[in-house]
């Protein structure tokens, strides 16, 4: 096609763009994905029966605090990688804060618990399934983010994929909290984080292929 024709065709479709359009687009993608993941938890895993009661306790909010703050930190990095002209990533270190805080809570927990019970506390009832479930729930959210990225312009595809995977994993873990009855900080620190890291690795692996434009 002639370049002039291309330009006149492109200029027929010029919708206004909001100032924080990148953030909105990422938020919409992640929420659409989270709806699918939430539906899956609701229908197939089941919401924990004592959810209302648990919401009055410390453990539930500790878990949500960890996964939600990790999601936000990962989204901040993802939004930066969605622009082509980002040279230096800022706020990357923020990701370490929730991890460090949860590790602190875990250390307190270990001090208070007799060492004979440490293993049971660490493995909980669901350590075998927890990371895989987080990874499964991360998939729809990752797909949602792929939709967001269709109008975005990442130039470091592997890093962008990893950040999107991290965000998807952390958000999936947030959704998974509706089902998971585990209460210990070191359980969450290990097995939730493992699931989230798996999601980030899958993202890094697929990023160069799927985010190309």
């Amino acid at each position, binding site marked *: *096609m002639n*370049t*002039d024709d*291309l*330009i*006149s065709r*492109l*200029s*027929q479709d*010029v*919708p*206004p*763009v909001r*100032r924080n*359009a*990148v953030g909105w*687009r990422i938020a919409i993608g992640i929420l659409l994905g989270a709806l699918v993941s939430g539906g899956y938890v609701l229908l197939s895993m089941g919401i924990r029966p004592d959810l209302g009661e648990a919401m009055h306790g410390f453990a539930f909010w500790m878990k949500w605090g960890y996964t939600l703050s990790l999601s936000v930190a990962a989204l901040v990095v993802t939004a930066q990688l*969605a*622009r*082509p*002209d980002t040279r230096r990533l800022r706020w990357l270190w923020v990701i370490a804060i929730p991890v460090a805080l949860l590790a602190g809570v875990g250390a307190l927990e270990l001090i208070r618990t007799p060492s004979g019970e440490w293993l049971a506390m660490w493995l909980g009832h669901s350590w075998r399934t927890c990371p895989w479930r987080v990874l499964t729930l991360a998939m729809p959210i990752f797909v949602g983010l792929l939709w967001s990225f269709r*109008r*975005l*312009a990442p*130039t470091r595809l592997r890093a962008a994929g990893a950040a999107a995977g991290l965000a998807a994993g952390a958000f999936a873990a947030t959704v998974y909290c509706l089902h998971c009855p585990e209460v210990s900080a070191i359980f969450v620190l290990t097995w939730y984080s493992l699931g989230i890291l798996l999601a980030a690795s899958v993202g890094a692996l697929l990023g160069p292929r799927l985010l*190309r*434009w």
Partner: protein
Amino acid sequence: MQANEDALRGLMIDGLDGDAAAHAALLRLLVPLLRGFYRRRASGSDDDIEDLVQETLIAVHTRRVTYDRDRAFTAWLFAIARYKMVDHFRRGRRLCPIDGLEDMLIAEDFESASTARLDMEGLLADLPAKQARMIRATRLDGLSVAEAAQAGGIGESDVKVSVHRGLKALVARIQGERR
């Protein structure tokens, strides 16, 4: 209209606010810019360059939400252009990067620099030892006059005079050879 940063940025922002005419004007101004950008960096037929230009225009259009109004427009544009070019090379399409040529230029530069060095050594060999040593120290090795004086164990003015006389002799000899 001239394609400078302020003009382009203004058009882009108007386009983001929904002004289709500004958007069209912007895209039209980008065409020669992008052609120049790609011609300097890739070798191939004009059609292939034009393909790349069109691809970039489409990307600028479809991914315009990623432009941050507070940042430089040209930086954003060339980040997209660079990405499109790297992607193009990675897919192994018809255009060739001029990177290889750049390596060749560096090699040629090295070669001429080394032959120049050899010529220089030949010329210096004919000068009195002190003059040759001082020229080598100040002009080839990059020492300051003070450093050269200290290294040679002589006064600074002695260094300056040696270099001056030595260079004069060299110039005379080279001009004599030419004649």
